[in-house]
Every structure is written in structure tokens, then in C-alpha cells.
């Protein structure tokens, strides 16, 4: 089974294709298209990995799937459909996460080319590192709406996925969420937190009650508010929202009165907050706006109609009951996981976000709009995916032909640029960043922190969140002392010790490695008394990813809400293959082309 027709390609390419083995990571919008192109072209050996299952909203573009496949493995169905185009190719499908011991460096080494069709940073970082370690060329793809991009990543030849710092995730101060929302998204984040407080995994960082530590509220007013609070609602405050709700048997009216009445009145008592802001208006259950409204004619999707506050309260009541029942039906200690596609969960967030928006005089939104924002939905269409996948496979052909130097990045623009270009190729490959803490020959990074307060547990978090590691092991350079181990339990007893306590001081260096990623980095410790958490510093002084002081809310990666069960970000569904770019296409210059990468990720809440 040679590239299927002699004479289409020159002999060299025909033979190279016949002897190739390609890995496709992701069987979503782009993955389906890539697989089709590979199979039709006659690539004889293909493996495809995807841990996701098929959803109805995939069907407008993931054309290897039909309605009867909903709920089935994407990788498996994609394989079966593609084989019907050309039964002479060998396809291996893995319904699995690519972030696993089973797909390590030796697994990746068997491929001539790896093609990424992913939708989240975590998996992209991971495949990037393994391809660097295995020295296999990686074609990285992504689309968002009409736009898209194709980029080659090859060790030593091009920059890697992590050479340029990524735009930080959008975050909101905790006190904005809890005390002073001013935009719909603040209310939506609050509503998702409330869902978790009541029905989901309780996270102390997702508190929904007034934040008395708000620095802005400090002063007499704040203080008096706090004292008065101690006498009446003080007890309630100290109890977890979940326990309090359980004690009231999730009585919708009581919950409503606390969340949208008492808590708001408490906020009003923090007078400093309202000196320059319009104060919120507490609501009472029996007197809700919109109760007597006559229904108006609505054109558009039912979900596009904005509910009145009265309707929101009714939905709130219904959802409280149905979610409570759902929670009760689960084994002790289990919890619900917010999912934009679960009706009650989505209704609950819509209702709560809008009630809160009304209180703070913020514009109410439709369920349709709130779903986009809460679920971080990135629009996706068949045509952009087809174009990006088509170019990706052409790039793969060029690599096999031996023309890897010609494989510059290509951007699909939503509209033509000033030169009439719709697909804009870069003029040259972008060289690796010599200071990259991932692909440099000897990767190095500094960790600025207060060694007196940073614990080993915090260090582990810093390595995972700051350096995108999956299972870090850390030893002290020159001493071989194991500080952190990825073996469960091995270093856990030291979790709460500070770095100073275990003998690490300013200027010490740790050798940190991740066996899953076959990645090792030297981490210099830099004492900073002022640093409250941690911060990564590279030699070039580029801003590095900031620490996430609180966990992201559900769906930290695009629309990948964790599903029940062992939580690990889904690594597929090219729904939201992201990474979009504008290239300024002016005069040719020697320096790296200007580009902007944006990535839609879920909000991260930071404390004030």
C-alpha cells in the first residue's frame, strides 16, 4: 500500500510515505480531518489517541462521527470510519489520555512525525516535551472560530511550544468575586463557586460569602461590620456553606434569603466599599422583580431569552431541589462536578449569576451567553478545521520529503490581511529560545520565593503549575538528597516543612525531573523576603507564569470540565484547539516575527 497512485508525488516522497509511521494526538475537529487526509494519501501506519467520547455538539464538524456514535470513543469511531475510506491502512486507536506512562519517550520514538490536534495547554506541553526528548518532529495545530495555525516543532531547529511565555490566564481578584462584582463574568464565576460550595467539591478558595479581609473595606466601617456580625450571623459565617445548606435541607427560600439578602446586607455594612460604587440591593423572596410580567414574544433560540429575576428565583428553587436529590443519591463523600451540558447545573449557574447581577445592577445575560462564558466554549467550524488539517498534512509530506527547513508556521486568518493573504506563512523557521526552560540544552530557571515560608507542598505545586510538570522528582544538586518524590508517600511526611527547615538556602539549586516527560530542569532558589508565594524567573527576565494562588474553577483548560472519576484534564476534543495568532506581516526582518498567542482558558481567581 504505497502512496496510492504512482505519479502524483515524486518517487522519493511516495517511498517516504510508504515507510512512514505517524501519530495523531486528538480525534476531534482537526484530528478527524488529519486522519482522513493521511488515510486517503496512503500513509500506511497511523496511531490515534483520544480519551474523549462523542457529543452531539461535535457533529457539525467532526465528520467521522454520526448521531448513532454519540457516547462512543472518538479514537475508535474515527478509526472505523477512516478505514472505510481505505481499508489497506493500518490504524491503531487508543481510547486513552496521552498523559500516561504507556505513551513515553520510547513509544513516541517509533513515529516519524507526531501531529497534535489538541484543545488544551496541559496536553500540548506534555506532548511537546516528549517529542523534544524523543527528537521526533511535532506538527502542532489549532483553530478558534475562523482562525487557525500550523506550527512545526523540532528539537534544535525551531522554537518549542514553551519557548515563548504564554499569556497568563485571565483571573479576577477574590474580593471582586465575593464583594464587588461589576461585570457579568464576575457573577458567573461566583455562581460556579456557589455550585461547588453547595454540591461540588468544597474548596476553601471558592468562598462565596462576603470577604471581610477585603483591604478596601478596612477602616472603621469594616471593623464595626465585623463586630456586629459576630453577634448575629457570626456562627453561620464560620460554618461551611455546605453544612449550613444541608441543615436547612437545601430549603430554596432560606438559601435565597441568606445568599441574596443577608449576605448582601452584610456587604452594605462594609461602607467603604460603596463610597465610589453603586451599592447593591438585597432581594427578598416575596418581592421579586418580574413576577407579574406578561410573557413577551421572543424570537431566537429559547436559550437566548433573558429570564426575569422572578424566573431566575423559580429556576434556582427547582435546581436546588434536583441537585440536592442528585447529591443524595451518591455514595457518602461523593460530590457533583459542574458540567455546562448538565441541565440543572447550567440552569443553576444561569439563575444565580443573573440574580446576583440584578442585585449589583449588572446586565443580565441569557442562558446561551452564560453557557459560553461559564463553559468557555470556543466556537468551531468544519471549514477552518479542514484547512488547518490539510496544511498540516502537507507539512508532514514536506518533512518526509526532507524539506523540513521549508516548514515555517502558517496562520489561517479570519479575514485577509492588507496583502490579501488568507493563509500567511512565516518567512523563516523561528529558532529555539536559548533561555527556554524546556528545550535549552541545559534548562534552567530560578524560583523566587521566601524559603522561610514556602513548604515542600508549595514547591510541588510550583513545579506542577509553574513548570507544567506531571510528576516531579527533586533532588538537591551536588548532594543527591531527595526533596520531592513522585512515588506516592515517599516524601509526604515533609510536606509541611519549609524549604529552610530542610536545609535549603538562597542560591541552592535543585535538579528536578519528570520521568513521564523525560524532562529535567535545574531550579535555582532565590530568597525573596517579600514574595508571598512563588515566582519563576528566567535569565532573560521574561515574565513567567504567575502562581495560581487558587485552583482554577471547573474546566481549567478550555471547556474541559473534569468528569467524575479520577480527575485529569481531558486532552482531546479539538472543539477548542487554541492558540491564535496575528502575524504582523510587514517588512521582512531577521528577528522573530511578531505574534500574539491567545488562549481561552477558564478564569483563575486570585486572592487580594
Amino acid at each position, binding site marked *: 500500500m504505497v502512496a496510492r497512485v504512482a*505519479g502524483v508525488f515524486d518517487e522519493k516522497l511516495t517511498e517516504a510515505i510508504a515507510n512512514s509511521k505517524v501519530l495523531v494526538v486528538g480525534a476531534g475537529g482537526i484530528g478527524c480531518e488529519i486522519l482522513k487526509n493521511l488515510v486517503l494519501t496512503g500513509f500506511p501506519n497511523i496511531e490515534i489517541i483520544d480519551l474523549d467520547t462523542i457529543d452531539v*455538539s461535535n457533529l*457539525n464538524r467532526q465528520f467521522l462521527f454520526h448521531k448513532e456514535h454519540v457516547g462512543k470513543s472518538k479514537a475508535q469511531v474515527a478509526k472505523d470510519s477512516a478505514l472505510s475510506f481505505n481499508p489497506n491502512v493500518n490504524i491503531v486507536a487508543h481510547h486513552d489520555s496521552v498523559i500516561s506512562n504507556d505513551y513515553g519517550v520510547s513509544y513516541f520514538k517509533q513515529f516519524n512525525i507526531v501531529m497534535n490536534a489538541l484543545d488544551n495547554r496541559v496536553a500540548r506541553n506534555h506532548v511537546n516535551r516528549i517529542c523534544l526528548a524523543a527528537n521526533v518532529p511535532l506538527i502542532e495545530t489549532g483553530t478558534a472560530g*475562523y482562525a487557525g495555525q500550523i506550527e512545526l516543532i523540532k528539537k534544535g531547529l525551531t522554537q518549542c511550544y514553551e519557548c515563548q511565555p504564554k499569556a497568563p490566564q485571565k483571573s479576577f481578584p477574590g474580593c471582586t468575586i465575593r464583594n464587588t462584582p461589576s461585570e457579568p463574568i464576575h457573577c458567573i464565576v461566583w455562581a460556579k463557586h456557589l455550585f461547588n460550595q453547595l454540591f461540588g467539591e468544597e474548596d476553601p478558595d471558592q468562598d462565596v460569602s462576603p470577604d471581610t479581609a477585603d483591604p478596601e473595606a478596612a477602616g472603621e466601617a469594616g471593623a464595626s461590620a465585623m463586630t456586629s456580625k459576630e453577634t448575629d450571623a457570626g456562627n453561620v459565617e464560620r460554618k461551611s456553606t455546605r453544612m449550613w445548606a444541608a441543615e436547612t435541607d437545601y430549603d430554596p427560600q432560606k438559601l435565597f434569603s441568606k445568599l441574596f439578602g443577608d449576605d448582601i446586607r452584610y456587604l452594605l455594612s462594609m461602607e467603604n466599599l460603596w463610597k465610589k*460604587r453603586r451599592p447593591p440591593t438585597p432581594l427578598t423572596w416575596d418581592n421579586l422583580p418580574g413576577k407579574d410580567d406578561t410573557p413577551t414574544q421572543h424570537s431566537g433560540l429559547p436559550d437566548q431569552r433573558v429570564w426575569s429575576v422572578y424566573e431566575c428565583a423559580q429556576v434556582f428553587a427547582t435546581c436546588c431541589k434536583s441537585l440536592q436529590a442528585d447529591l443524595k443519591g451518591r455514595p457518602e463523600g461523593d460530590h457533583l462536578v459542574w458540567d455546562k451540558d448538565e441541565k440543572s447545573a447550567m440552569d443553576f449557574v444561569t439563575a444565580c449569576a443573573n440574580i446576583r447581577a440584578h442585585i449589583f445592577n449588572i446586565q443580565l445575560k441569557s442562558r446561551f451567553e452564560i453557557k459560553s462564558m461559564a463553559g468557555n466554549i470556543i466556537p468551531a467550524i*468544519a471549514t477552518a478545521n479542514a484547512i488547518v*488539517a490539510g496544511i498540516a*498534512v502537507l507539512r508532514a509530506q514536506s518533512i518526509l520529503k526532507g524539506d523540513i527547513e521549508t516548514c515555517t508556521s502558517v496562520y489561517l486568518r479570519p479575514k485577509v490581511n492588507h496583502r490579501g493573504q488568507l*493563509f500567511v*506563512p512565516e518567512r523563516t523557521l523561528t529558532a529555539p529560545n536559548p533561555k527556554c526552560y524546556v528545550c535549552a540544552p541545559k534548562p534552567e530557571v530560578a524560583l523566587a520565593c521566601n524559603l522561610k515560608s514556602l513548604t515542600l507542598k508549595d514547591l510541588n505545586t510550583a513545579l506542577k503549575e509553574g513548570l507544567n510538570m506531571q510528576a516531579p522528582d527533586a533532588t538537591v544538586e551536588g548532594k543527591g538528597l531527595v526533596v520531592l518524590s513522585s512515588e506516592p508517600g515517599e516524601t509526604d511526611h515533609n510536606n509541611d516543612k519549609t524549604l529552610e527547615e530542610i536545609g535549603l538556602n538562597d542560591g541552592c539549586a535543585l535538579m528536578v525531573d519528570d520521568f513521564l516527560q523525560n524532562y529535567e530542569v535545574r531550579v535555582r532558589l532565590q530568597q525573596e523576603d517579600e514574595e508571598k508565594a512563588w515566582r519563576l524567573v528566567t535569565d532573560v527576565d521574561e515574565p513567567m507564569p504567575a502562581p495560581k494562588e487558587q485552583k482554577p474553577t471547573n474546566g481549567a483548560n478550555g471547556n474541559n470540565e473534569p468528569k467524575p472519576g479520577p480527575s485529569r484534564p481531558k486532552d482531546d476534543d479539538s472543539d477548542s484547539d487554541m492558540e491564535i495568532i496575528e502575524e504582523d506581516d510587514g517588512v521582512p526582518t531577521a528577528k522573530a516575527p511578531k505574534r500574539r498567542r491567545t488562549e481561552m482558558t477558564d478564569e483563575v481567581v486570585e486572592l487580594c
Partner: protein
Amino acid sequence: MVENNDMELSEAEAEQYDRQIRLWGLESQKRLRASKVLIIGLTGLGAEIAKNIILSGVKSVCLLDNEKLRETDLYSQFLSPPDKVGENRAEASLQRAKALNPMVEVTTETKSVDDLPDSFFTQFDIVCATGLKQEQLERINNACRDSNKKFLCGDVWGVFGYMFADLVDHEYSEEIVQHKAVKRGPDDTAKNPCEKVTINVKRRAIYVPLQNALSADWSKPELRSRLRRGDPSYFVMKILLRFRDENNRNPDPSKRKADTEILLRMRDEIVKELNLPNGFVSDALLTDVFGIVSGVAAVLGGVIAQEVVKAVSQREPPHNNMFFFNPIKCVGFVELYGQ
């Protein structure tokens, strides 16, 4: 012009088209749902166009082809199963085309375009023609034009591809993003607080027929200056259309050597006729123009289908009037010819 029917979308439609409605809006989806599309030529390119358009949720798609499915079609044509070689290419594609989206009505027509009256073509809102000779393309284009129907055509030869559009007199709305200064309150720490506001602007684009675009006068200074940009794609298209017209077929992979010679001879003719600089159309551009390479069919099929969506939904600026994919640079660009 596609009439926007006022019927609301069903729940099933809203669910299936959710990710695209969030991009182009409900109004566009309703217009799509009311539109009838004809696709001529079910090679790999026709299949790609058909796939994308059927997925988008138009009212109906008619697949027109009078040729039989060949073995060589299978390396880019995924709508026809391999066991249907020898059957009519449109009919062989019907079952899989329907399965892509049961909400779209898919039909076939197996007559040659030459045996069909003008009125056949004008019953559709938009026609996408592939694999036809210049004369056939111009006839259908003019028939559409006379009835104010939209016409697109395109081809893929090997790794090269082009598209032409004649949307006649096209009105559309364009979303423009503006930055409006705002002050959100004391929390706002942004340096220049501003809010993105999108507004819809009504616009109009006037097109010319295919014969104008194909007979562009290269002695005119405004076209002459275009040569400085150095992209010869327009001439590659001219050479390949001429090859098809004169040989009644496309360059054949099994006659790669002989056909390359013909192509190079035609190249020299065209260079002479249009007084182009020597070496402007390099040999390299004419070596990989055999068969249909799947990746390029996907690229052109994506571009053409997106133009269909823009044209019938009357949203976003459509390309006016030619698109070329130059595989050597991997650049895709739009140029206006014949105006």
C-alpha cells in the same frame, strides 16, 4: 438571494449547530437552512466542498456528476466507497453524503452539464463548479448571473488550487470591533480602560463574471505592477485550464513525463502571449499538478465552502474574486481580476 425563513430552529438543530451558531449567529444559521446548493464534479474537491456544506446545515445539496468513479478518485474522494468504482460518481457518493447530516436533503443529478438547460442551474441559490472546461464554466456562470444567482468555481491539480467567485451584486453585513473607553469603577486598574464593542455594518460588493477575470489584460499598468509581487499562481491556473480545454482531461499521473512536457510548452506560450518575464512561472510549479492531493482538496474545499456559507448567510466579507493556494510558499491569497 436566500430568503430568511422565519421558522425557529428545532432543539435538535440548536444542539447540533451550537458551536457554529456561537460564531456566526442564529440569523446566519436560518439563512443557511433556507439555501439550496448545487455542487458540480464529485472528485476529491467536490467531496470536500459537499462535506463542509452539508455539515453546515443548508436546506439541500445536489451532487451533479456524469462521470464514473475511478480508482484514482479514491485517494482524495472519501464520499465514495472503494467497491463502487465504475458507478456514477455522484450516486456513489450519495449514501455517505446523506449520513453526514440527516437534516440536509441530498440529491444527485447524473446528466452532463451540457445536457442540462440553464433553468436547471438557476433553481439553486448558489452553484459550485469543479472540473469543468472554461466554456462550460462561463456558460453556467452567465446563466446564474442573469438570474442573480451566485456562482463559485475552483479546481485542485496536484498540490495547486484556485477558486473564483461571482456573487453578482452582493449585500452583506460585517462585524466591526471598536474600542470604547469606559470606566468600570475603582477596581479598574487597566491603564486605558476600554470595552470592545462590536457593531454590524452593511456593505455591498460588486463582482464580475468569470470571462472577465480569465481575460484580464496584463498589458495594463495596474496588472503589470502586480507582477512585482512575484506570485505566478494566476498563470499556473491559466496553463492548467488550457491543458484541460485542449486535451479534454487533466494532467494524468500515469503520464507524468509526457504531460509535464505539454504543460511546459503551454507555459511558454502563455508567457509569450502575456509578455511575462522569463522564468516567472517556474518549472517547479508545474511538476506537482497531477491528480488531486488530499490535503490540498481539504484546503480548497474548506475555502470554497466557507465562501458558500458567507454568500448565503450574507455575513462577513466574501473573497472578491479569486483565491489561489501556492503550495511552494504555502500561501493562500485573494486577488481581484477583470474589473
